[in-house]
């Protein structure tokens, strides 16, 4: 049985069915991310003045990842244009760059996540200001319970240059003044002095709960999109021989999803990394 309107447009909509379908799906995605963004706005505005963290994410890496995703967006549309000129070889070559970009993006995100899972904050029992940094010999996700389980009596911490509560503008001024050493001296902290120990994980704070929720959901979209693009690049490409117009439409539809994923990142990047 032939499925109608996979290539020819319907008279009432003027579009082939898959295109209407993907736009309806993207509309639901706008509402999904919109709800999360509005939650972020509420949480951010509701935070006590000066409490929202600054400078906790690696901006050069985030910028590079943004460029990777933008590159993948242009290669997707160029591969579709190659099919429009019936150049299947060019399509495959360009779309392989898209797949490499998708893998690159996810690889870099994994690296960033891992960095956070081994980055710690220590809150002191006597109420003095908390310290952030890396702990000698610590693995991922350590807490005060981990120290107790491992019978660790003290930890050596390599503090960050600046605490995240110092606004980025002030951090830059302090860095310029040269009054704060680039690599502060390591400090030894007795376990008995620690009130709370947390890696930069969702449980650390509202900021990281928001960061991981939004970026992980986005990464899942990248993964899903890459799976579809990979299928159409590999086994699914056999349709090109039997029904090239329908195959071209499939590439267009998968491309529309991919561009949406890029669009979401265009807003996520400045909101989470820069503001």
């Amino acid at each position, binding site marked *: 049985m032939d499925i109608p309107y996979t290539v020819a447009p319907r008279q009432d*909509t*003027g*579009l082939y069915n898959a*295109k*209407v379908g993907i*736009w*309806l799906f993207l*509309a639901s995605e*706008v*509402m999904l991310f*919109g709800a999360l963004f*509005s939650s972020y*706005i*509420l*949480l951010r505005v*509701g*935070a*006590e003045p000066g*409490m*929202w*963290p600054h400078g906790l994410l690696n*901006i050069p890496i985030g*910028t590079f990842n*943004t*460029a990777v995703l*933008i*590159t993948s*967006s*242009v290669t*997707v*549309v*160029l591969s579709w*244009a190659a099919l*429009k*000129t*019936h150049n299947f070889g060019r399509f495959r070559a360009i779309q392989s760059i898209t797949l490499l970009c998708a893998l690159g993006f996810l690889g870099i995100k994994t690296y960033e996540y891992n960095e956070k899972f081994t980055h710690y*904050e220590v*809150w002191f029992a006597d109420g003095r200001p*908390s310290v952030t940094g890396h702990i000698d010999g610590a693995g991922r996700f350590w807490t005060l319970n981990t120290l107790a389980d491992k019978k660790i009596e003290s930890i050596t911490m390599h503090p960050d240059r600046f605490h995240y*509560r110092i606004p*980025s*503008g002030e951090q*830059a001024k302090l860095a310029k003044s040269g009054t704060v050493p680039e690599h502060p001296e390591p400090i030894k902290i007795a376990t008995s002095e620690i009130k*709370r120990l947390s890696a930069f994980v969702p449980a*650390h*704070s*509202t*900021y990281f709960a928001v960061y991981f929720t939004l970026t992980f959901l986005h990464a899942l979209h990248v993964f899903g999109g890459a799976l579809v693009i990979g299928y159409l690049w590999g086994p699914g490409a056999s349709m090109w021989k039997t029904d090239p117009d329908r195959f071209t439409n499939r590439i267009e539809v998968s491309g*529309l999803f991919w*561009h*949406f994923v*890029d*669009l979401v990142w*265009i*807003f996520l*990047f*400045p*909101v989470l990394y*820069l*503001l």
Partner: protein
Amino acid sequence: MADSHDISKTVRKYIIVFVALLVGTAITVGMYYVHLPSVAMTVMVAVFIASVKAFLVAGYFMHLIDERKMIYGILGSTAFFFVGLMFLTIWAMHDFPAHTFLGSHVP
């Protein structure tokens, strides 16, 4: 088969948009290091640049500049509900959940 002249013109357009997106990203990041006088201005400029980039992606890569009415209809209703959602946030302006950043508070 599509007119190869038309396609090459379209491809040129895609490349221009690609470069514009990279430039937009560079400006946004540059702004972070320049440190504008106020947070409000930083937010406004960042959201403006992101919106221009979003327009370029949606308009050219997703071909929204030259689409059928049906798609505009779907997007119009989405925009209506999206704006409504954001209005709910603004509506709650006097009823924000307080102390939402718990970083320094030990539960």
